[in-house]
């Protein structure tokens, strides 16, 4: 199903966060949202996923979610948002607890997704016993267990160290490989956006507007290969130029204030 952002604007009190954003997320694509700090990326994601009411405009859906999907619009949070009093399995199961599934069916789904995300041996551990990377893996398992139609990922790797980020990025690529997953991925890391996304939306400084939409033509599987390095570097340079100008302007405006 497609997700259509129509004339969305948003304000936090007197602060204007977003201005007339029009955008379409097509079924099966991974769309990255990038932009300078404070440009309203996470606000836009919250509005797109229906957990934040926009001040203006609306978000529409075209098509029907699959029957199999228990929670069509599912989030992966930057700070993992795990319940510290529940075990790994308990956190994943939370997402299934109000969908009319029996205990046995829930357990079966939880076991399957924990195996898929390489968490089976940690099912009885509490979040505090896990590293940051493992915690986010639990967040991803919890999102996948409901078979989402669209995944909303809010800087899922930004709270992690570089090595863990790299490992989880490989996991993301493997998870998305061969599936028709639709995802909106907010990041400030251009490398992540280029490796994962089909299209990259660059937002302007606050109030965030769509500055440019960049299509990533290189097939996802080829993006790690040496042959694609030049093209990827060029893309990253282009994106950085767009963001740099906006970030510098934003900095200047802050000083003027």
């Amino acid at each position, binding site marked *: 199903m497609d997700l259509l952002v129509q004339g969305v604007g948003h304000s936090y009190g007197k602060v204007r966060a977003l201005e007339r954003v029009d955008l379409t997320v097509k079924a099966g694509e991974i769309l990255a949202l990038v932009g300078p700090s404070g440009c309203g990326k996470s606000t836009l994601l919250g509005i797109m*996923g229906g*957990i934040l009411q926009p001040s203006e405009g609306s978000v529409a859906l075209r098509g029907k979610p699959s029957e199999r999907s228990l*929670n069509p*619009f*599912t*989030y992966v*949070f930057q*700070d993992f*948002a795990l*319940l*510290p*009093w*529940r075990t790994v399995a308990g956190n994943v199961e*939370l*997402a299934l*607890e*109000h969908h009319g599934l029996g205990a046995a069916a829930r357990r079966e789904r939880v076991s399957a997704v924990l195996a898929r995300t390489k968490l089976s041996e940690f099912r009885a551990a*509490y979040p*505090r016993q896990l590293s940051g990377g493992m915690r986010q893996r639990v967040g991803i398992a*919890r999102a996948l267990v*409901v078979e989402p139609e669209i995944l*909303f990922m809010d800087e899922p790797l930004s709270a992690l160290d570089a090595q863990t980020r790299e490992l989880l990025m490989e996991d993301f690529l493997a998870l998305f490989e061969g599936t028709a997953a639709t995802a909106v991925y907010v990041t400030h890391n251009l490398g992540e956006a280029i490796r994962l996304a089909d299209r990259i939306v660059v937002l302007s400084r606050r109030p965030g507007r769509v500055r440019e939409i960049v299509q990533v033509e290189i097939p996802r599987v080829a993006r790690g290969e040496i042959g694609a390095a030049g093209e990827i570097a060029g893309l990253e340079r282009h994106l950085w130029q767009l963001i740099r100008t906006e970030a510098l302007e934003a900095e200047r405006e802050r000083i003027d204030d």
Partner: protein
Amino acid sequence: MTEIATSSPPAATTMPFRGGGFEIVPRPLIAAASLALLLLAWEAASRFGLVSDLFLPSPLAVCAALYRIAADGTLWLHLSASLTRILGGWTLGTACGLALGLLMGIFSAVRAAGLPIVSALFPIPKIALLPLLILWLGIGEQAKIATIALGVFFPTAITAFSAVDSVPRNLIRMAQSFNLPWRAIVLKVILPGALPGILAGFRITTSIALILMVAAEMIATQHGVGAFLLEAGNLLRVDQLLAGVAILSVLGLLISLVLSRLEAWLLRWR
């Protein structure tokens, strides 16, 4: 070049260590020894006549008094009356305080209505209300239980809504993003998230309840540790008075122990 090759390197010295310290480490021996030393000094001061037995009997005399009141049933008579009051008052105050505090934490309208009233009544020393409560409820048990309950109610309500406030909003948003119903969000996210704050509040309210219990029992009461202390003081039975104080100390420690166990069990995920 030649010069460099032939000259011997300066002798290596050990890097001076500047870390360490500023760490509190358990020293159980010192803890036991300090307590024993205090008791010994007290005992010695009594034996050698440095303090009057009338005003400060020796620890052994206090122990003997404790044994006597335990053996003749006086201790249990007073202690059971006190325990009934503190348990009744604390449970009533906690139940009502938790109900109001949680509602204030969840519903803006209840917070708006309740906060000014709670804030205005919280600072009143609740023992000051005992005469009024006696007028309203009579000289019996109800006035004493109500005093303890009132003393517990306000801090419980305040800690409960603060504990709800401290539940990270992102956990609630997460639950909403998975379409959890309102009731499930309250039961599975807000209440467990608020539990550490609520349990921390229990430590404060149990000590308030203990103070109010003793104070309330000193007014027109026949049985209770407070009444026993007052009577012992009036009759200059200082050994019994100190035995009563020791009982209160043990009671406080036991309450603290029960709460620690409860915390360890309920918050085992920490």
